[in-house]
């Protein structure tokens, strides 16, 4: 198992022991199959128990796992004929967001996503998936292009957030995100957004206004990072675990709150355990949700998106209740 997380240690230890016994069996020609079988069953029970009862914080760790598949993995495995398109035509090309045109089961689509990078060098060059304004403006340019040519838009969300830096502020980080929100609301093509890893606040939402919002089982989506919330609440970033619970950032909570439309299951232990299986699961969900959207007119799609977001929010009417 590559890079096990701390809560996976008991499973890893047990699996290692089983491997040792297997090696011992073949080396010394002693039959330990019964013992191995017992341990195998125990390991399965343990996996079921641990992976079936993940805490919010454990899910956050999975969502942030160094080996978790990134957007480019999904783009290359879910789609065919991907043609990457670069640059915002205003300032630069931000590789923390990638995008281009591709085919989904033969249908031309525009696909865009945060890309956090795979190895260290790649991660640094992509700023760990934290976009600058030019990233959002590239995404907007590609979405406008999709809208012009009637291609559905599919976005993959996976970022800690938009880059907090001096230059990002100077070039209008706020305006870049804000404009994307408004323009995405008005496109007359289907938009499906998939939260694949970290959904870090406005930086995630900047490519996240869709007709459908799908979310991987262990991904999270939050108004503020658990560390940031802990700092505000208790002046202590190390209490992020508690803050993550309070913020209700996991897929099950977001489904209940009416924010996401479906949870896409992950392979046991997380997407990184079986990236190809994850690809299949995401592709199935995309096809399922895209089909009905393709039957809708541009006006209907805009109206559908408007209503989706207009519904989100919980409040009471105090005066009316008080009078009743």
């Amino acid at each position, binding site marked *: 198992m590559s890079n096990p997380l701390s809560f996976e240690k008991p499973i890893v230890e047990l699996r290692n022991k089983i491997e040792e016994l297997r090696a011992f069996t073949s080396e010394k020609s002693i039959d330990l199959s019964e013992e191995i079988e017992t341990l195998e069953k125990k390991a399965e029970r343990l996996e079921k128990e641990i992976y079936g009862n993940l805490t919010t914080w454990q899910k956050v760790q999975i969502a942030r796992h160094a080996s978790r598949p990134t957007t480019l993995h999904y783009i290359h495995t879910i789609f065919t004929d991907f043609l990457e398109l670069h640059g915002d035509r205003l300032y630069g090309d931000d590789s923390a967001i990638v995008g281009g045109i591709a085919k989904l089961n033969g249908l031309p689509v525009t696909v865009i996503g945060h890309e956090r990078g795979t190895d260290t060098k790649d991660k640094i060059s992509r700023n760990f998936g934290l976009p600058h304004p030019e990233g959002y403006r590239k995404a907007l340019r590609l979405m406008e292009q999709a809208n012009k040519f009637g291609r559905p838009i599919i976005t993959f969300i996976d970022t800690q957030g*938009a*880059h*907090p*830096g*001096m230059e*990002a*502020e*100077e*070039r*209008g*980080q*706020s*305006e870049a*995100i*804000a*404009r994307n*929100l*408004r*323009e995405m*609301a*008005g496109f007359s093509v289907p938009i499906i957004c998939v939260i694949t890893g970290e959904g870090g*606040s*406005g930086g995630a*939402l*900047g490519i*996240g*206004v869709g007709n459908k919002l799908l979310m991987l089982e262990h991904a999270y*989506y*939050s*108004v*503020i990072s658990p560390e*940031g*919330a802990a700092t*505000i*609440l208790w002046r202590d970033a190390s209490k992020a675990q508690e803050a993550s619970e*309070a*913020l*209700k*950032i996991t897929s099950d909570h*977001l489904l209940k*709150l009416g*924010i996401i439309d479906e949870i896409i299951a992950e392979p046991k232990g997380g997407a990184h355990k079986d990236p190809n299986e994850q690809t299949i699961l995401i592709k199935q969900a995309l096809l399922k949700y895209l089909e009905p959207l393709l039957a809708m007119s541009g006006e209907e799609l805009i109206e559908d*998106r*408007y209503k989706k*977001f*207009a519904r*989100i*929010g*919980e*409040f*009471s*009417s*105090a*005066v*009316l209740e008080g009078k009743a």
Partner: protein
Amino acid sequence: MSLKDLFRKQRKYATIPSEQAKKEIPEGIMEKCPKCGTIFIAKELEKNLKVCHSCGYHFSLSAPERIASLIDEEHFFPFDEDLRSVDPLEFPGYVEKIEQDIKKTNMNEAIVTGEGTIGGYPVILGVMDSRFRMGSMGSVVGEKITRAAERAVKKKYPFILFSASGGARMQEGALSLMQMAKTTAALERMNREKVLFISVLTNPTTGGVSASFSSLGDINIAEPGALIGFAGRRVIEQTVRQKLPDDFQTAEFLLKRGQLDQVVPRLELRDTLIKILAFHA
């Protein structure tokens, strides 16, 4: 407070209003400018729309004060006053904090929306109030802005929105985040229907509010000295590991970098708005 305190030497470059500065003056009678240290009779300061006579520092205005400073003969018809926050996440301490702020401000939420006329021009007006949960946007603020924008479309009245907000409200989690998308979707409709939207950014306009409706005015105006930005100063300093310039994320800083149409002093704001409204009447 002793006389000695009253005449204590002021730090020359203090620009941030400190709790201490506020406490040195008996509440309600006298006010002290946190920037230059000048002391005023509170009523005099109010007459000047809470702008320091001496250095031009803009004190925060409450939503009622702001509305009174703009609307003709104080004829203002509020919308959706009955909407109140609930506690959808059962977030620790949220209900108590909301109750405290309702008592403290005599308002139901961090924004007042409504209809009135400015210089004879009918407008839909939204005014955020930073005293209520730092003006943060949760479900109620998002809903009120959305409904106000929908009314603006229906009546074809310009929509003027005064921001004063720390951003999306943490205690309502992702529901607050989604209000950014919800409010901007309403602005998209306004945009398509060619209804004028004037965004006035006042101190502070940051985070999820600056990254949604506040930045999307057909005309973006800010008050002098207002803090406006996406990320918090401390977070940025930690990221870039260097001190930021003093004027970083001020209205003047943003004007220079092309993010605003104008920085307008409060005493000229009403006339500027009337001028803009006249162009679009």
